[in-house]
């Protein structure tokens, strides 16, 4: 590697970017819950905020111009413009799905020494169909395809779920023992889904990026105009076919000396492996108008029957659209049920209860959260109390990894909005701390018969103790069974309750808690009486004893 030509430095550039992002991820996931800052933007969110998929959604979901919105917008602008100039560098450097697939491919090379990959003709229908359907879902209010095919969410979800208990151990913030492990169903769904693509990557390279990835579809159309690209220099090439056999994007046609740079993810493997140095990454000498027709007529020997819309009249082209039509057709069939599920006030059971689920503040409404959330689990990773947990049981098919508030694990901290600050898609929109303190995500309910004060006649009041808004007070109402003396028992003033779940989380009654929070599908605002000033007693030097 000593005598690399100058332009091979891009190889290192890619690796540096890659490792910065990998380190960023690990830092975010392992240190997330231990932070104390309450800013609009957390440093932990930087690897997420620069992801194309979430950033695009944020453009549509930010209620106002906020820092997160601006950074996403700027990041998106940078990525799109550099893609236009240099090609799809995003896919092999900062896309976590790309990085994981590359890892699988690297492992596969150890086992499969013989001719590995081969050229695959481009086929764009499915990613575009998915992209269109995701957009449709965002408008109609459900996020199934978004969570299933947006590469960032797919890749990160299993990791944020699996690393969360470990991170809590590191930061000495342990949860109640029955909740200290990960949410099994959600984790299994997420890891099976990711593992599926990694296994495919093991055998077929970047299959996901080629055939499914909606972000890939967007970047592909951006890369059409790129001037700097990988090219095969025909006179130097000895037709050994090495480049084609190692191309994970399956975009090198070595026989025709052609690289389909729209699908090329700039992993620079071919650059390293070419024995004669025929492959270069450089500026094109003359600026050809690189639109669809010019590509077709270029001297690379590209045949016309492989291109899309233009070729729809041919039977072969039409057959290629069949899977896309099937996909759309299937979606039209299941869409009503998914939408109904996404918009209904959902009943689920957490622990012993059937109840409406509460969602984190900033989500505004269940419908909005379901359509905007990519299910990456960053909010769960940074939640200091652990109350946020991704759940697959809530929305089922409408959203397989929805962040909900599980009050068995803890309660929503009154002076915290880390989940909003870290959310890359704006599904949890950033609201001011004052506003957050007045946002009602659910309402507490008191089951009198389970209360320790009522049942045993012992003083408790843990709920009133933890209530941040003073919605719960102990009032003398009952005759305690134990001693026959008047005991004060909890009374909830519903107009002050914000549903933070502190009362439920700390209620010591077993097996069933006496307090439970019923979530709201649409968040509300409460009004608080203004705080009274500190009384200054003028009794200098007086002691009450």
């Amino acid at each position, binding site marked *: 590697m000593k005598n690399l030509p100058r332009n091979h430095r891009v190889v290192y550039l890619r690796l540096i970017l890659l490792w910065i992002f990998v380190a960023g991820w690990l830092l975010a996931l392992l240190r997330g819950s231990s932070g*104390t800052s309450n800013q609009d933007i957390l440093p932990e969110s930087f690897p997420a905020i620069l992801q194309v998929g979430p950033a695009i959604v944020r453009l549509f979901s930010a209620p106002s111009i906020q820092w997160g919105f601006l950074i996403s917008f700027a990041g998106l602008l940078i990525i799109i413009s550099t893609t236009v100039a240099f090609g799809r560098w995003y896919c092999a450097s900062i896309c976590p799905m790309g990085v994981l697939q590359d890892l699988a491919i690297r492992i596969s090379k150890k086992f499969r020494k013989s001719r590995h990959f081969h050229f695959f003709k481009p086929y764009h229908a499915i990613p575009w169909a998915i992209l269109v359907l995701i957009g449709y879902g965002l408008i109609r209010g459900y996020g199934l395809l978004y969570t299933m095919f947006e590469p960032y969410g797919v890749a990160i979800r299993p990791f944020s779920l699996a690393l969360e208990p470990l991170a809590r151990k590191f930061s*000495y913030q342990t949860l109640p023992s029955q909740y200290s492990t990960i949410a099994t169903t959600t984790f299994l769904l997420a890891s099976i889904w990711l593992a599926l693509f990694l296994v495919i990557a093991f055998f077929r390279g970047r299959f996901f990026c080629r055939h499914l990835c909606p972000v890939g579809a967007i970047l592909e159309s951006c890369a059409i105009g790129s001037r700097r690209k990988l090219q095969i220099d025909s006179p130097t090439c000895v037709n050994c076919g090495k480049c084609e056999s190692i191309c994970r994007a399956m975009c090198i046609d070595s026989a025709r000396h052609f690289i389909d740079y729209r699908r090329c993810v700039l992993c620079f493997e071919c650059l390293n492996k070419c024995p004669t140095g025929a492959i270069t990454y450089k500026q094109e000498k003359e600026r050809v108008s690189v639109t669809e027709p010019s590509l077709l007529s270029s001297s690379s020997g590209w045949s016309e029957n492989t291109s899309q819309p233009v070729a729809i009249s041919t039977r072969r082209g039409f057959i290629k659209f069949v899977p896309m039509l099937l996909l759309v057709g299937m979606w039209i069939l299941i869409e009503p049920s998914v939408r109904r599920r996404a918009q209904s006030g959902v009943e689920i059971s957490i622990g012993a209860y059937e109840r409406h689920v509460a969602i984190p503040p900033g989500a505004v409404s269940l419908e909005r959260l379901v359509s905007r959330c990519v299910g990456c689990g960053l909010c769960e990773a940074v939640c200091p109390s652990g109350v946020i947990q991704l759940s697959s049981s809530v929305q089922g098919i409408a959203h397989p990894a929805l962040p909900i508030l599980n009050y068995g694990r803890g309660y929503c901290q009154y002076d915290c909005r880390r989940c909003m600050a870290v959310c890359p898609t704006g599904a949890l929109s950033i609201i001011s701390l004052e506003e957050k303190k007045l946002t009602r995500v659910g309402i507490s309910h008191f089951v009198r018969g389970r209360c320790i004060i009522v049942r045993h006649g012992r003083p408790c009041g*843990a709920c009133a103790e933890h209530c941040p808004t003073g919605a719960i007070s102990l009032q003398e109402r009952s005759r305690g069974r134990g001693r026959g003396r008047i005991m004060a028992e909890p009374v909830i003033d519903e107009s002050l309750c914000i549903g933070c779940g502190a009362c439920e989380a700390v209620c*010591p009654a077993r097996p069933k808690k006496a307090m439970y929070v019923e979530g709201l599908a649409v968040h509300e605002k409460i009004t*608080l*009486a203004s705080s*009274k000033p500190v009384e200054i007693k003028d009794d200098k030097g007086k002691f009450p*004893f």
Partner: protein
Amino acid sequence: MKREITSKADERLREVSRRDIIRGALWATVSMMIQPILPVKFALASDSDRTKGAGYPTSDGAKPILVAVKGGSYEDRVDRALEAIGGINQWVKKGSRVVVKPNIGWNVAPEGAANTHPRVVKRIVEHCISAGAKEVLVFDHTCDSWQAAYKNSGIEEAVKSAGGKIIPANSESLYEKKEITGASTLKETKVHGEYLNADVIINVPILKSHSGAGMTCALKNLMGVVWDRGYYHLHGLDTCIAEFALLRSPTLNIVDAGNIMKTGGPRGNPKSVFERQDMLIVSTDPVLCDTASALVLGKKPEELGYIEKASKLGIGTNSLDNAEVRRITI
């Protein structure tokens, strides 16, 4: 020495051989060498002395002292109170390992009076260090998330700047299971390891109202060194609060009553009423501290179940007449 062993009774009757003695001595040496690195701490003589606490009122028959200081700044009050009680040097020796246990339960700023005021904590840590303490550890098993509570209460910074060490207490792995002899309800509980191992415990509660227990002060503040607080609530808050002090009563109690929360405690809410008292109450007896503090808060000590229970258990006295009260006005 050859001898046939025919039955178990024979084996027991066997004479002690030289080899047995050497073997025994070897075992004893090895086990003594291993003991310090074992996770289980054996109760040694010094441990039982410690559990009684220096503040045990009936230890020498003398009246327990209560110092109450009013007026001045937070620092002034701490200085004057410690001076009046005879200096911190009588407990904190050179090389001592000191635990300062403030109330850091909530992610609330110092103005909210939900946590001990950081200036009080800082001054106490400084006193300990100038008295020659080897290590001053500060922690609380917080209710809100601990990093946020430590930081926003201002106590983390105060302790660090004073040269102390602030350590976590929100992980079960830091706690050791302990039996409490003489307890009827709280027979065993998990206690923070540092609370058990320290030479000196300085309990620094803030005085405020408490929805469940009526008032939180010296005895109630010790709930912050226990892992399972739900057990207290489930099995009788008053009894458990009182009985925990049987395990180990603090060496010294310093009650911050500078700005007290009269209603809506312990966390405080927008309806809470505060009152400035500019007071500090110091005693080696936590029950005495709580009795005096209750009067400051405007409550009757006899209405607070745990004060009565703790006094019956002999942890301290709930009668101010039995104590020597030193009142100081700055």
